[in-house]
């Protein structure tokens, strides 16, 4: 067991576990977005940042990827950490303003203003879908492309992936576009098209509209509302 200080308390955790796991074990809430218990930690959304160390050398690290260390000082809700989380929420919300998950986070953390120009990209590149596909579905049908502001998630060469079995796992875990594949008549229900492998959009269109099938094109509900 590794002993360390968590918000001033002397605590212990199993060696190899992460700060996030330890904090949650002790009932401390740390917000996460790109973290999923069934998937490998990624550290992309930066919401789970906590402050480690003391004095001028104190720094923020993502608790989902940082392993517990003997004697470490961890503070989960410092001014720095909270300010960073709020900024991350604002940044992500400006790219995917329709995400229910992000809206909930924003309201919880009191992010009430949107100061950036809204982009409506509906993807915050949290990588949950990529990891879901590779790690749980053994598919590797989708992955990251390019880097920097051009980064996106798609199938190889933006073509239909032979690896994709249309399992819908990616849509299931997505925090930004999970409601995207509602049928044209259902505004609130998840249509389960992906899970039943009988997508409702085929009632309306000749071809499947979900982006797994033809990368870049999104669900029917979005199109129908316009």
């Amino acid at each position, binding site marked *: 067991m590794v002993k360390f200080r968590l918000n001033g308390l002397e605590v212990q955790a199993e060696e190899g576990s992460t700060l996030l796991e330890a904090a949650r074990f002790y009932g401390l809430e740390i917000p996460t977005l790109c973290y999923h218990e069934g998937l490998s930690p*990624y550290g992309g*959304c930066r919401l789970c940042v906590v402050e480690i160390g003391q004095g001028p050398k104190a720094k*923020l690290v*993502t608790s989902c990827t940082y392993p517990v*260390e003997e004697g470490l000082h961890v503070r989960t809700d410092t001014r720095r950490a909270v300010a960073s989380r709020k900024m*991350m929420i604002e*940044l992500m919300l400006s790219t995917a303003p329709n995400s229910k998950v992000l809206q909930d986070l924003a309201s919880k953390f009191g992010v009430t203003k949107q100061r950036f120009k809204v982009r409506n990209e509906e993807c*915050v*590149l949290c*990588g949950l879908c990529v990891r879901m596909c590779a790690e749980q579905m053994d598919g590797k049908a989708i992955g990251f492309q390019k880097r920097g502001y051009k980064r996106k998630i798609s199938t190889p060469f933006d073509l239909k992936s032979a690896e994709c079995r249309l399992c819908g796992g990616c849509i299931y875990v997505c925090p930004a576009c999970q409601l995207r594949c509602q049928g044209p008549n259902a505004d609130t229900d998840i249509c389960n098209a992906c899970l039943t492998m009988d997508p409702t959009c085929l009632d309306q269109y000749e071809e499947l509209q979900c982006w797994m099938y033809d990368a870049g094109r999104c669900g029917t509900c979005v199109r129908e509302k316009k």
Partner: protein
Amino acid sequence: MKHYRAHLLVCAGTGCVSSGSFKLKEALEKEIKTRKLEDEVLVITTGCNGFCERGPIVMVHPDGIFYQLLKPADVPLIVEEHLLKGRPVKKLMYVPPEDKTPIPKMKDIEFFKHQRLIVLRNRGRIDPEKIDEYIAFDGYEAMGKALSLMTSEEIIKEIDASGLRGRGGAGFPTGRKWDACRRVKGSPKYLICNGDEGDPGAFMDRSVLEADPHAVLEGMVIGAKAIGAAKGYIYIRHEYPLALQRMAIAIKQAREYGLLGKDILGTGFDFDAEIVEGAGAFVSGEETALMASVEGRVAMPRQRPPYPAQKGLWGKPTVINNVETWATVPNIIRRGSDWFAGLGTKTSKGTKIFSLVGKINNTGLVEVPMGISLRDVIYGIGGGIPQNREFKAVQIGGPSGGCIPAKLLDLPVDYESLTEAGAMMGSGGMIVMDDKTCMVDVAKYFMNFLRDESCGKCVSCREGTQRMWEILRDITEGKGTESGLRLLEELALACKDASMCGLGQTAANPVLSTLRYFRHEFEAHILDKRCPAGVCKSLIRYVVLPEKCTGCQACKKACPNDCIKGTLKDVHTIVQANCIKCGACQEACRFEAIEAQRDEAIQII
């Protein structure tokens, strides 16, 4: 061995090669042959001399005469006058801008005089493609010493005592890094040489690899002995073909001489090195991203710990150091840690190579002791700003470094002082800027680079750099607001705090350092809709000053859009509606009659 009475050392660094040094070498050899001097004079290609501004460069050894800006047409003159008649050619020598007397010898030229060559000690004097020449200048002596006379602990102790810190940017003590890796149990262990130099305006690693590849190899063998590694990878970016080629030759020759491979020098120590060609992403220079790239994955940094010394390449203990660090190591082992620790400041020992670029008279590569003041580098070695313009700032440490203003010119150059001033050592790029540079524009330029080169994993870095760039772009276009400026600062701090790797953590530096020292320029853009330096196209318009215009028509000829009207000897006018604000007219005017003024039209909006 054959003896020659003179050697012509032709610089074949990338700078000189692109200005034609290979053609020059051919011409020299041809001329020497026609004059039947081939038994007396030998032409040799060397690595970069650093004075790239003046290429192609030829040094005549043993006289030490320095010729610059040579063309193949100058060759007969040099051979006839210097080599046959023994009269050095004055008109091909370097002439300093302040007084007009040519300086014959390299060591007397201001640019070279203040330098202290350790890492670059072999530059311009050996042929990097010949191992014998490296050995002749004490090459592989340190390796022999380390392998046969020293234990791992002793090597690490020596490096630790020298105070050597990583030259790649962060400045982590090399001895401590090695020691950590040595103590970790696990096998095999790996070494990596980080030659993925990506900063705009920095080329010291390229120069070391091109001028002295064996020094890097020798350093790696010593490091391998210290930590117990048997395999090393030299990661060089694809954009450095000459460096790749010379390193490949160096490895081949070292293997042939038994200085790499099995049982090196009969000591029973095995080590081999291999080149890995990078694929050209800036972020590959980050150590964990680089290791991912060597493994064949996308260059994307990961969380540390575990540090590479614990779990590095393929999960094995790995030491990763920069080219310059590796090339420093043999010097320390050969000459001792006391000698090295005697150079530099209390916390930053030894020398550092800087690339001097931008608005500076002597562009090039310089190696100076740590702790030298910025003024000595810029005004002493660099020869000041062209046209005697005013120094405004120097951008140090690559895109994620910072801008240091004129009031801090006496700042000593070491790791701590630079970080305190809001810049960083980085790889050692120095971009000098004069009063015609707009600092908002500079911040925008670097942010544009970073938003492109961020790997895109962390929201803080990917979105942060993009949004910072957007705000900066708005400011340069006259659409900036005070709330935007506050948001920019807030965002910059969040980006610095919340990002995972060095790229994101320092990505805000261009914004933070320009805001720290040049806030008034940001405010001028936002409040007065005015660009004080006259750079931001949306905020300026070019006008002809009637009292200065002579009607020479130079601007009219230079204008690509035909929007300058006026006949010969009459005052010209610029038709604003058609002006694309390229600034060609201002450059063409010899009478300073064209001025960038604040665009009043913007003010009304």
